[in-house]
């Protein structure tokens, strides 16, 4: 074996490599604490929910032995009565009830009312007592829901996020039609993201080319114009679009003034899909222009002259010589815009109305309003998987090392 002298000194003193690594340590810690740990926490949350299992261990233990046909036996009722009272004492009953309610709505009040009334009942038979408090305890569906909510690890939230559920037999079926919302939203998000990406490419490509081939001073000025939106608050930009596009907005006023439309026929350009499209395209455009510009400015103009001297029409020269060389930029720009668009939240929230809401708005809703973090995490997880899949696809098709971000 060869002994490299450096290895010897490396043991006594931290080598240059080690010291260099120490320099990036603060960054790694920062990313770990503020990004990776919460991300992991959320992903775990999407499959792991111990609240019910911790609160009703005995009941769930006994329920596991139950065959699911008919009603559970007396011992289960007794265990539940004891644990419900204990949960009420611990003030965890609300959380437990909320989670069970998510599996089968309506059970929240059943649980809270039962716990309240059970205080006055000292001895069994518990089955009769509880069925007396609420008829739901005589329904085996209630017990099935309870058992399902008691799983520590569950794919329920993912199923839910995909408009699926388990039926009483345990097999996966679609949600009833009136409860299917997420798949539609995923599709809409996907289509909006693709649409915005396409629009950005369509608008951004000629702009990038113009900048890349302009004389240096003018190129600098044009690049500045592209970057100006970056210096303005996202909220201000989005609100500006509201000012421009709303029913009593600038654009509609001009149309009415010009007589293009009647005063009562003002076009709804905001608080719907149109608004989402326009505002998102505007916000994300620089992310398309910059990588394109970076790639284009590296292509010598003489290439097109050469193509033309060889007999190519302007179109052939563009399509066969110029366009293929810009593909790394096109790929990078599209990937960037698409990934940003698919998780976009603030713009659709402000200008999307009801028809322009995307999946992120639903995630925000579950995080902030319904407090169903597990479902929010599951929705986010699916989004993450989509983006990762896209990244892999891009790597296979184009090669990630060819991507030029600017």
């Amino acid at each position, binding site marked *: 074996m060869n002994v490299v002298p450096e290895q010897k000194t490396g043991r006594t003193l931290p080598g240059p490599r080690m010291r260099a690594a120490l320099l990036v340590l603060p960054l790694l810690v920062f990313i770990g604490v503020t990004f990776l740990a919460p991300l992991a926490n959320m992903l775990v949350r999407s499959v792991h929910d111990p609240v019910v299992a911790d609160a009703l261990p005995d009941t769930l233990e006994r329920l596991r032995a139950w065959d699911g046909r008919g009603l559970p036996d007396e011992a289960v009722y007794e265990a539940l009565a004891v644990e419900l009272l204990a949960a009420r004492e611990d003030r965890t009953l609300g959380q437990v009830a909320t989670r069970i309610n998510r599996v089968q709505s309506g059970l929240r009040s059943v649980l809270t009312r039962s716990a309240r009334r059970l205080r006055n009942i000292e001895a069994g038979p518990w089955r009769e007592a509880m069925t007396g408090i609420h008829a739901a305890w005589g329904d085996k569906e209630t017990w099935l829901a309870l058992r399902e909510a008691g799983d520590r690890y569950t794919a329920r939230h993912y199923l839910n996020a995909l408009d699926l559920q388990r039926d009483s037999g345990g097999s996966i079926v679609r949600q009833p039609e009136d409860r299917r919302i997420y798949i539609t939203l995923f599709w809409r998000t996907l289509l909006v993201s693709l649409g915005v990406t396409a629009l950005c490419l369509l608008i951004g490509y000629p702009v990038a080319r113009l900048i890349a081939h302009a004389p240096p001073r003018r190129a600098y000025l044009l690049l500045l114009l592209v970057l100006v939106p970056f210096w303005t608050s996202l909220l201000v930009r989005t609100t500006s679009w509201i000012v421009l596009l709303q029913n009593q907005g600038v654009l509609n006023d001009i149309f009415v003034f010009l007589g293009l439309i009647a005063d009562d026929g003002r076009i709804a350009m905001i608080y719907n899909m149109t608004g989402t499209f326009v505002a998102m395209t505007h916000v994300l455009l620089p992310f398309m222009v910059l990588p394109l510009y970076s790639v284009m400015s590296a292509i010598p103009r003489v290439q097109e002259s*050469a193509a033309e001297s060889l007999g*190519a*029409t302007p179109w052939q020269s563009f399509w066969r010589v110029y366009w293929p060389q810009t593909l790394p930029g096109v790929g990078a720009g599209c990937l960037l815009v698409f990934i940003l668009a698919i998780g976009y939240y603030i713009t659709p929230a402000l200008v999307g109305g009801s028809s322009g809401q995307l999946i992120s708005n639903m995630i925000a809703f579950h995080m902030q309003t319904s407090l169903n973090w597990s479902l929010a995490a599951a929705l986010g997880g699916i989004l993450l998987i989509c983006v990762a899949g896209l990244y892999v696809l891009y790597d296979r098709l184009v090669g990630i090392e060819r991507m030029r971000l600017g």
Partner: protein
Amino acid sequence: MDGSGRPYVEYRKVSKSYDGKSTVVDEVDLDIRKGEFLTLLGPSGSGKTTCLMMLAGFESTTSGEIRVDGRSIHTLPPRRRGIGMVFQNYALFPHMTVGANLAFPLEVRGMDRDTCRERVERALQLVRLEGYEDRRPSQLSGGQQQRVAIARALVFDPELVLMDEPLGALDRRLREEMQYEIRRIHKTLGVTVVYVTHDQQEAMVMSDRIAVLRGGVIEQVADPETLYEEPRSSFVARFIGENNRLHGKVVGIDGDICDVETGGETIRAIRIAPCGAGDPTTLSIRPERVAVAPEPGLYTNELEALIEDITFLGDYLRIRVSVCGTSDFVIKIPNIVGHGALLAGDRIRIGWTPTDCRVLDPDREEETP
């Protein structure tokens, strides 16, 4: 020249101005014969590349006319002119293989695959790059890329090929090799080549004729030998090869021969530029046409000179002497036995014939080509 006696390419009073005030090319008249290798030679800013680009169609003419094969080409876009073009930095398409690069001009002309493959193979054979079809340009050396660029400009059989300083990016040794290579290809195919360079050596090696440009005007068009032996202006004399220039005044005229006074000596020389007695002038004498210690009476011009220094350059000696008021007069003598006797500080006699000494226009400025 083809049978009709008409030149293949004609520049007729062609001018080019970018801003409407200063002209880059000024009323250029130039005839290029079919099959000829013509070089546009000049320092940077002399308008040589502009002349080429107007012929290729990448620049428009401000006034005047360019005809190819008797037809005016002004209305034709570059792709319709059917002219092969080799660019300064090759302009190969980096995303295509060598084969695809060569096939490109054929494919846009709608040729079928078999013809394409056959032509590509032939073109690669011509530039001695057989078997390189599947390489990318980035995998080739500079010289090989240049060969590909040349092959691509020739693969669609153009009658006219333009080259814009194609060897500028290569090192000296490779450049010399490529000069002979380009000359060989020209001889093999017999196409008309218009070549642009600022390197007079390069122009001399390859060209049938050279057009020397200066400030947008053609100073002289001639074959390399004539250009070297009989420069028509002091600029050309200075630009082509090494020349001794003596500034003086015409004192007497006798037909083609005139006497010029310079630095206290009177020298007989052949008159090229129109001049009269008393006019300022520049005399030009090639260093190798000056004899050292000639037999007395052999040359009309015989002078005494002081050797300033001697440089040994292998095949010849370069002797710098003081004569006619300048200390920068250069003499080149071949390295043959017997010259070891010369030493700096010696006084020697030198001489030359009037026909080797040309009376030209006075040097306007000291621009170095």
